[in-house]
C-alpha cells in the first residue's frame, strides 16, 4: 500500500485533533502534509485526513477542492502558479504565460512529459508591487521577463535533477 504520510505524523495529527474543539481547523495542515510527502492528494489521502481528524470525507473534500494550492490530481515536481490577476495582467502576464507555455511545451493545467513542471494559472499572489509574478513552491518570482523565466526554469530543472540523483 502507498504511504501517504509516515505513521508518526498521522499519530501526532490524531493527538492534536483529539485535543481541540474544532478538528476541522486542521484539515488544511494535514492535506498539506500529505501533499508534501506524496506530491499531491489522491482520494485515499482525503479519506486518511477524514479518518485521522474524525471528520466527514465530504468536509475534507470541500476544503481540498476550494483551495487551488491543494492538488487533487497528480502534478509535476515543480508547480508553476502564474498570476492572471489585474496588476500582473496590466504588466504583461499574458505574454509571460505565453512564454511559459512555449518554453515548457504545455498548456495551462498540463504537466510536461518529463514530469518536472505543471503550469497553473492563479489569482493574486500578493506580489502586485513586483508584477508580473509567478510562484514555484514557496518562492515567488516577481518583475518577470522572458530571460528571467528561462533562467528560473533552468535552475529548477537542475535542482530537480540534483534531487533525483541525490
Amino acid at each position, binding site marked *: 500500500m502507498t504511504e501517504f504520510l509516515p505513521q508518526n505524523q498521522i499519530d501526532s495529527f490524531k493527538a492534536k485533533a483529539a485535543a481541540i474543539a474544532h478538528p476541522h481547523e486542521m484539515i488544511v495542515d494535514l492535506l498539506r502534509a500529505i501533499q508534501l510527502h506524496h506530491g499531491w492528494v489522491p*482520494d485515499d489521502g482525503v479519506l486518511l485526513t477524514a479518518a485521522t481528524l474524525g471528520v*466527514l*470525507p*465530504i*468536509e475534507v*473534500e*470541500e476544503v481540498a477542492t*476550494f483551495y487551488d494550492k491543494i492538488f487533487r490530481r497528480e502534478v509535476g515536481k515543480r508547480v508553476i502558479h502564474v498570476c492572471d490577476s489585474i496588476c500582473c495582467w496590466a504588466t504583461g502576464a499574458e505574454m509571460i504565460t505565453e512564454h511559459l507555455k512555449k518554453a515548457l511545451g504545455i498548456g495551462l493545467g498540463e504537466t510536461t512529459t518529463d514530469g518536472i513542471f505543471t503550469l497553473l494559472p492563479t489569482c493574486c499572489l500578493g506580489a502586485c508591487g513586483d508584477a508580473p509574478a509567478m510562484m514555484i513552491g514557496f518562492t515567488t518570482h516577481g518583475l518577470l521577463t522572458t530571460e528571467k523565466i528561462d533562467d528560473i526554469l533552468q535552475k529548477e530543472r537542475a535542482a530537480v535533477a540534483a534531487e533525483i540523483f541525490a
Partner: protein
Amino acid sequence: MPKLTIDNLEVTVPEGINVLEAARELDIIIPHFCYHEALGSVGSCRLCAMMFVDGPVKGLQMACMIQAQDGMVVSSTDPDAIELREHVIEWAMTNHPHDCPVCDEGGECQLQEMTVAGGHGVRRYSGKKCTFTNQNLGPFVQQEMNRCITCYRCVRTYRDYCGGTDYGVFGSRNRIQYARFREGALESPFSGNIIDACPTGVLTSKPFRFKTRLWDLQEAPSICPHCSLGCATVPGGRYREVQRVKAGINRETNGFFICDRGRFGYDHVNHPERPRQGRLDGQPVTVNAALLAAREQVTAIASKHGPDSVAFLGSSRSSFEASVLLHDWAKATGSQQLVFEAHQGRDRAARTLTAQLGKHVRSQEELRQSDLVILFGADPLAEGPMLALAIRQAVRNGGKVVVIDPRPVELPCAASYLPLSPEKLPEVLVALGKKDFNAFEADERVLLESLVEQLKSAQRPVLIGGADLLGGKGVQALCAAAEKFTSDERSVGVITLLAGPNSYGGALLAGDGPDFDSILDAVQEGTVRALVCLESDPFREARDPARAHAALGHLELLVSFDSTPNLAAQRADIFLPTRANAEMAGSYVNNEGRLQAFMPVIDPGVPIRETGAGNHPPREFFQITPGSSPEADWLLLAGLLERELDLVGLRESIEKDHPPFAGLSSIAAETTGVRLTAQGTLPPAEEQELPHAADSEALTLMAITGQIGSCWLAHLSSPLAATEPQPYVILHPELAAELNLAADERARLTTHFGHCHIVIRTDEKMLKSLILVPQLWDTALEGMVPGGMLDCRLEKEAQR
C-alpha cells in the same frame, strides 16, 4: 409589531420577520433564490435587493437580511434595485445551458420565473460556459450540474436541515459543484427533498423523468398514507397513474419537507396486480352486485347465528369517514366485534393514546421547538421518518435527545443511548416517575437519575413512544410519566408513533371493544363466522400470523374491501375494490388527533403504460375505462348502508351522529387541519403476554419495523421496492463474536417458521442480548410481525 411602508403601502407585521417576508404579506413578491422559509436567509444569491428610502436602514439592501422595523420605507420598484436585480440574474445565467425545452423542471422552474421577473431577456455573455461531469446519485435523484446557479439550497436542505453527511459543495467561483465525494446513491432517507429545494433543473426526480410535462400533470393536495404523522403531500398523476409526489406545506406537521418513503411510495396505486374488479365466490361481478351480496350475506349470518357472529376489522389506512361507517355498520348489525387494527399491540397503543393524551398532545412543529426529547421504544426512521427530522430541528435549536430502546435507533442528529430490553420500557417509565432505579444496573442508574433532573428543568420536554414496542401498557406508562413531570408552569408533551395514517381515528371509534386476538379466538371457537375486512390483511398483520391463518380458515364468510393485492383480498368470498388515497377525497386523523382532508388527483384505471407496453395500443374498445371500478372506501360503505353518497352530506350526518367529531364538515384540504377534542376509551384489560424465550439455550429474536421493506404500501411501489435490502438481522458485535459471526457474513436463522438465509449486520448501540429481525414483505422474514419475540438459532452458513 413594526409598521412599515413597502411600495407606498403600509403594513404591520409580526416581530422578527424580515423585509422580504413583510413584502409577501402585501403580496409583493421580491425575486429570490437562497431565501427559504424553513432554511432561513443567508443573503448569498444577491437577488432580493430593495431600496431602503427612509427609516433605520438606508440604501440598497438585501431584503431577506434586514429585519422589518418600525418606520421603514422600502421600495421594490426603485430603478437602482431593479437594475441590480437585472445584473444579478444575468450573471447567475452566464453558465446556464438554456436547455429549457428538454429540461424536466420546465413548468415549475423558479429560475425561469425569476429570470423573467428580474428583467433579463437577452444574453450578452458570449464566452465559454463552464461544464461539469454529473454523478449518478442513485435511484431517486437525477443530477444535471450544468444548469446550476450555485444558490446552495440543496446543501442547506440536505446537510443542514436533513442531516445528510454524503453530499456537499466542491470547488470555488465558477467551478462550484454540488456532489458526493464519490459517485453513488444518496444515503439520507430524506434525499428527495433536494428535488423540491432546487430552484431549477439540476436535481430532478429520477423515477419521474421523461414522464410528463408539468403543465399536463394533474395535482391535488393530499395527506401521505405511509405512516401516522399525516404529512402534507402533493401527488401528481397522468395517464391514469400517479407519477410523482412532492412535499406539501403544513407548518404544524411536516413543514416544507417529506421523507423518501412518502415521496417515492406512490406506485402502489399503479401496481400491476392491484385488484380492480368486484368479485363474488371467485367470479368477477360489478361493484353493486358485490355490495348487495355483502350486505345480504352479513345480515343472513347475523340473523342466523346472532349479531356477534359477524366481526368487523377496519384498518389504519382507511379514510376516517369509512372507519365511521364501518363502526355504524357494526352497530346496525348489533355486533360488538369491531376493531380497527389487526396488530394487537398497535391497536392497544392507539386506543390508550386517544384515551390519555389530553393536554400532553404535541405537533411536529412543537417538537421542533422542544429542548428535551426522550424516545422510549420509538424508532422514527422506521415508524415515522419525518419525526426524526423534527427531532433534528429540536437539536439544531439547542435541544437534547435521549434514546431508550433495545434497537440501535438511528437519528440524523446527536443523541445519548440507553439500550434496555423491551419488557423494561414500561418499567423505566414508572421508575422515572418514582425516582426509584433499584431494578437497574449501576451505569443505567446514572443516566436515569440525570434524566429525572433534565426532565424537571426542561421548558418544553417531549416524550416519544412507538406503538410496536410499547403496546397499550407502555403508552399508558408514557402518558403517566408525562403527567408526573408536568408542573403548573408547563406540561410535558407526548408523541406516539402509530401504525398508519388513520390509526388515531380508528382508535377513537374502537371504544372498549375486543382486540383482534380475542376475535381470532372467537373465530377459532366458531362463535364468529363472518369477517369484514376494510383495507386490512388479518393474515399478515395479526400478532401471530400462523394463528391467524389457522383460525381464519374456519370462517364461513370473508368480505374484503381493498386497493392492494393482499392475502385477504385474494382469499375473500366477496371482494370490493377501493380507491387509493390519491384517487379519492376523504380525511385521516394523524397521531396527534389532527383531522386532515385530502383530495383526489386522478380517477382509477389501468395505467396506459401498462396496456401499451411499448407496442401498438390495444385494439379492443370499451365504453368505460379499463380498471376504473374501484370506488372510495366511504362511498362503498355509504352505498351499502344507504347513507349519503356525497362527502359533504356524509360528513354533516357523521357530525350529527357523533358529536365528538365536530369540525368534520368544515375541514378543507391544504390547511393545517383540525385537532379533534374527542377522547377515546381504554381497551379491555390485557391478556397474558405470549410466552417467549422458554428455551434457555435459544437466543431471543425481536421482530422490528425496518427502515425499508416493512411498509406494505411502500413495498408495492417500484421505486422503493428496488432499494429493499436482502433479508438481514442486526446484533451487537459482542454477541456476533460469541456466535463466531461477522458483519456482512451470510448466516442461517432458525425459528419455528423454519430456516432462512440472512446477512449479518452489527451495531454497537443496541442491546447485547437480542437479535433484531426486520419484517420484510415477500421474503422469508414476512412473518416477523414487529414487536413479536421468538426463540431462534443463528449459525454460520455451512462453507460450500
